[in-house]
């Protein structure tokens, strides 16, 4: 696992959990899991291993996640003037499937093919979920036209 993979894991959990501390804890767990997967299957692409690991750990953490909880976040800095409100709202309202594919595909930057391999789904399914999720997210950003 490269530093880029670790950063991808950090980004994933930051936006999925919106909690810095939990992002680190879940990230560490996912990284170990991803490394374990790579040991078992060296041919597996890093991105697919990360998708597999982050999803596996997410399922464990999502059960106890209170999405309505407001967690102050300071050290993980966004560019000045950037508003996270639409994302926070999206994180609260979107389904897990929608939330995760947007993070993997648009924030982390993995291809739909790698995501599909990691989740054991077809590319079409991923594409469909993405379209649905982005429409929802775009609807939220339309209330804040200055954001984009």
């Amino acid at each position, binding site marked *: 696992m490269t530093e880029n993979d670790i950063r991808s894991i950090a980004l994933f959990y930051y936006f999925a959990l919106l909690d810095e501390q939990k992002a*680190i804890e879940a990230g560490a767990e996912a990284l170990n899991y991803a490394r374990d997967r790579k040991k078992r299957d060296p041919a597996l692409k890093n991105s697919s291993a990360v998708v597999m690991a982050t999803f596996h750990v997410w399922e464990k953490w999502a059960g106890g996640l209170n999405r309505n909880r407001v967690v102050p976040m300071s050290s993980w800095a966004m560019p000045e003037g950037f508003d996270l409100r639409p994302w926070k709202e999206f994180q609260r309202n979107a389904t897990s499937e929608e939330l995760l594919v947007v993070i993997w595909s648009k*924030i982390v*930057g993995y291809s739909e093919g790698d995501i599909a391999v990691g989740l054991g789904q077809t590319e079409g399914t991923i594409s469909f979920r993405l379209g649905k999720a982005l429409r929802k997210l775009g609807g939220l950003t339309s209330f804040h036209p200055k954001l984009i």
Partner: protein
Amino acid sequence: MEKWEKEIPLSRKNRRTVSDFFAEEMLYDYLSERLDEERRTAVEKVLAENRDLKKDLDKISQGQRYAESLKALRVPPAALEAIDEPDTYMSVLLKKTNYERWPLTVKWGMEALIVLSALLIVLVVVPWDQALKFGLSPRGRQIILAEVSREKAPEAQQTDGVSETSETIAFEDEDAKKPSAPATVAVPETGKEPAAAPSVAATAPPPAAPKAPAVAAGTAAPGEGEKAPVAETVAEKSKKPGEGALFRGDLAVTNLTATSPKIQDKIIELGGRKAGEVELGWKKTPTSAYFHFTMPEAKYEELTQFLREYGAANISKQKHPRVMPDGIIRLILTVEEAKK
């Protein structure tokens, strides 16, 4: 099959048109430019006719741009290091037990239980009696000194906190008397021996007497019917090294604080002098006083009578390797507060 294909054309006028419903599902692929030319044209045609679909397309486009802008998040290096940190036994244990998700009250209860267990183990395992003796009591420290002296002199002994060796047979405040040295004491032959001094005459000289000339004349004047004074040499033929004696006893009194100074005064009055290292009446414990002293043997009876006023003194004569000068006895008396 060929017949059916001819009868049911796949598209009208040989063109693959899409409905609004399908066009809506294809919007993301259209935006991603993954549709073939024919599909793209068909979707564009629907978009031109359907405003709602056009709005949906804008939403998807806007959502995509917003999501891609989130990549700009700057992850601190410390967080990356923390994620890459190898697991410790403790962290694995906490993760396995889902400790973070426990209710707060259960967490506190568990922590309190661990702290109490640790305290209990410390209380049970540490030998507190020995620790307190060595840490607080002067006796505890004396015990260590005794061990050192034992190595140097095998015959060294320890008696109630006072170490003794055959080389320092006398107390610091007394003249030493070697066990093998013969002593001559003048004894008036009165025909009666004091009850309290079975082996030594009642007119035994003070402690300096052993250094008197070997043969001294009796002081008693010759009288009628009395025999002439006889100078008797009391060479300690029977006293061999290691055949001394020690008077040891204890006494229970009702008011130790008031009684102890009186006993101390009486001992001094009778010519007693402290032996060993501690003062007369040393507070051995909060409820006991310790008297280690030497005194003329002739005064022993008077002392016991005095002690009877305060209680039944249980004093016994014991064999002891240290040999005292003639006419001098050594006592160890422990006076304790009587139990109510």
